[in-house]
């Protein structure tokens, strides 16, 4: 799979939080789309970037690696990186790879926004 099949939406919720809406597949070839969305979402004043995984259709180990890179960028900018909308399957992958220890996982957008506040 060498083609990017990820589309990203960026929503600025308020002065301090942004949501990145993921639609499609996250693989090593998603780097440009994911990083561009992060750059757009993590603008001035943003304290929390929230990844919305509701539309995630597929993720391989290259995709997990990209999430680590996003995490590093968020940590460097002293921003929280949070997530919601993960199915049980993807929650298990976060647990297996121990990303759940660094990325806060919530059931809904409202829960993630509360945690971000």
């Amino acid at each position, binding site marked *: *799979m060498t083609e990017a099949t990820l589309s990203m939406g960026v929503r600025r919720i308020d002065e301090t939080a942004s949501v990145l809406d993921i639609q499609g597949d996250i693989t*090593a070839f998603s780097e440009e789309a994911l990083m561009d969305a992060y750059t757009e979402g993590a603008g001035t004043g943003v304290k929390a970037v929230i990844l919305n995984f509701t539309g995630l259709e*597929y993720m391989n180990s290259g995709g997990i*690696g990209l999430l680590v890179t996003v995490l*590093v960028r968020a*940590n460097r900018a002293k921003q929280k990186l949070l997530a919601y909308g993960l199915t049980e399957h*993807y929650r*298990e992958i976060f647990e*297996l790879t121990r990303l759940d220890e660094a990325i806060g996982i919530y059931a809904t957008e409202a829960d993630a926004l509360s945690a971000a506040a």
Partner: protein
Amino acid sequence: MAETPRDTGNWAKPTSTLTVTDAPAGAPNLVEGKRLLSPVQGFGKMWQKTYKVGLDGIETTPQAVIAEWRDNFASFWPKGNDFYPPLTGLEPGEVALIKAAGPGGMKFKTGVMVLYSDDESFTLMTPEGHMFAGWITFSAHEEAGRPVAQTQVLMRAQDPISEMGLAMGGHRMENRFWEQTLANLAAHLGVEEPEVTTTVTCVDRKRQWSQAGNVRNSVAIRSTLHMLKPGKKTAG
């Protein structure tokens, strides 16, 4: 009801600690009961290292390359390093044991778990007691009209001793290791003069001092103690 994701069968099942089954007799098992560590739980600077070899002059597909690589994984390792694959092969969730040459002539005894596997890639994840915390992904794809085989490592040194070891020649050794492995793979596939390219990126220059306690599982210390111990612990 939600559809089953396409990658469902490709990932290892969640596990809190490693269990080694069906390892060859005599393989050093120092990873039994150890937890997996991602780059998030590592200590040192975070590195992404990408090693690539173009498979010029041969007719093949990414799927065929990965099948060959996975089935004969150990045979492509440079001499002096031993990889003990599980008898069931490199399938998600299986654990392989390793005896590898380290800096200063040391032999590191550790292991890896197969985190992910599909037709075009497979990924190994390191447990506590490895030199680094992270993932190594082996993949093949088409690039500029030719097949390419690639190894990509995303890692942090697990502990301060390993960080020092990597800085004092360990990184260089690791680079040579994967460059030689890819050259061996390419030669096996019929490439006449394989050329391996290496790209190293420091993803995070910050060391995570909160993880310095990983030193209690230091591969250097544990491998040394294992070497000195009578009645060494082995699988089988």
